[in-house]
């Protein structure tokens, strides 16, 4: 990435989502990438915490992921879900105790041997700009060991990005905006 081209225009600054998005951004079935009745539906859930370990009740999360076969889809219909079309994108406002839930499928590997992950974006009152991170599936140990991003992290940092598979098949990952177990948040090339 050494020859990342310079930007021609300077990006517009972000700002906090603030406290009052609740009547604007959530929509019906926003967190249902697939219907609960889908045979391979998976619950992705967790809790969002602040630097004191208190839950954050006013965060908004978005996920973006490949389908079960590892294909990146480009399909309209996220905002008006028909219950059949997988669009790969979902949104949810956390509940009063910081909890979030998505109904989705396990993303497939986008290339053979690649560790499958879900992209996550965090917005919150008090958070002045959005944060990006990845939620890796825990199963493919060889792929996780070969993942370039995970390889560049300490073991403790790595654990903040790898979801736990619970007994009921659900995926769990808590998000910590600050503190000892702070989630690893990402920057990408060409941000400024």
């Amino acid at each position, binding site marked *: *990435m050494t020859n*990342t*081209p310079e*930007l021609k*225009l*300077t*990006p*517009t*600054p*972000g*700002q*906090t*989502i603030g*406290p009052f*998005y*609740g*009547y*604007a*951004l959530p929509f019906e079935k926003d967190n249902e990438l697939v219907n609960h009745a889908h045979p391979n539906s998976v619950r992705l859930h967790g809790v969002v915490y*602040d*630097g004191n370990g208190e839950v954050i009740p006013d965060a908004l999360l*978005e996920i*973006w992921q*490949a389908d079960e076969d590892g294909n*990146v889809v*480009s399909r*309209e219909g*996220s*905002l*008006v879900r028909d219950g059949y079309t997988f*669009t*790969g994108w979902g949104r949810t406002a956390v509940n009063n105790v910081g909890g979030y839930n998505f109904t989705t499928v396990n993303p497939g590997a*986008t*290339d053979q041997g*690649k560790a499958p992950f*879900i*992209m996550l974006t965090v*917005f919150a*009152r*008090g*958070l*002045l700009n*959005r944060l*990006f991170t990845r939620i890796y599936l825990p199963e493919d140990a060889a792929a996780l060991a070969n993942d*370039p*991003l995970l390889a*560049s*992290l300490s073991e403790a*940092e790595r654990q903040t990005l790898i979801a736990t598979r619970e007994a009921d098949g659900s995926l769990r990952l808590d998000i910590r*905006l*600050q*503190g000892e177990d702070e989630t*690893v*948040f*990402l*920057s*990408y*090339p*060409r941000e*400024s």
Partner: protein
Amino acid sequence: MSANTNALDPAATTATQEEISAEISSTHEDYRQQLLAGKKAETQPRVDFAPYRSSLLRHPTKNLHHADPETIELYSPAFGQRDVHALESDLTIQHNGEPIGERIVVSGRVLDGDGRPVAGQLVEIWQANAAGRYVHKRDQHPAPIDPNFTGVGRAITGANGEYSFTTIKPAPYPWKNHHNAWRPAHIHFSLFGTDFTQRMITQMYFPGDPLFALDPIYQSITDQDARDRLVATYDHSITSHEWATGYNWDIVLTGSNRTWMEEEEGEH
């Protein structure tokens, strides 16, 4: 009578505006010294900005970790006419009557860092009404709700990245950051690019707002040129005869990574 000044914020910090402003000035002065010492200009808000009290426990303390974007990160969800009705960009026609306030049109383009239009993508906005009140159950500001104004709009950008909203000019409103804290008038904007790494949420402001200097959210952007990028321009060519005044605001997202990575791959 000032009996009502604290009614909104029994839990508010006791910091005064003077204290908050002094903290802002101090950070900005440090930034000016950095610039003089040759450091690169900042373009984004600081996430660690103590004058905005809610940020104290809600910002990462470690540096962001560099990631080379892969697959899913190089694409964005698709939105279109199936998702958004054309009428959703007019916030003044969502009820039976005309909303109270100054009717305005806000239009502009969504571009990426290479200057390319972001076409066919979702833009969402939300805002307070002409009295500074949100239709949100947690907004306790004792200003009137307008039964004819919800303050939520959506649009899909056109082929040149263009968008246009018809709405009502929002008013400033008080909040609980410190004693007698007021937000400058603003419209919240949510934007998608061609890569999901370009996803952003921000706020658009109006020119000449006297509250700019006092607002720790706006001033969390330490660089004046960067702050100016959040301020719309009054544009008489958008203003329409006997109907609405007009503002222009263009939004620049970060650079697409897919485009240049594909170009590089093509060279092999």
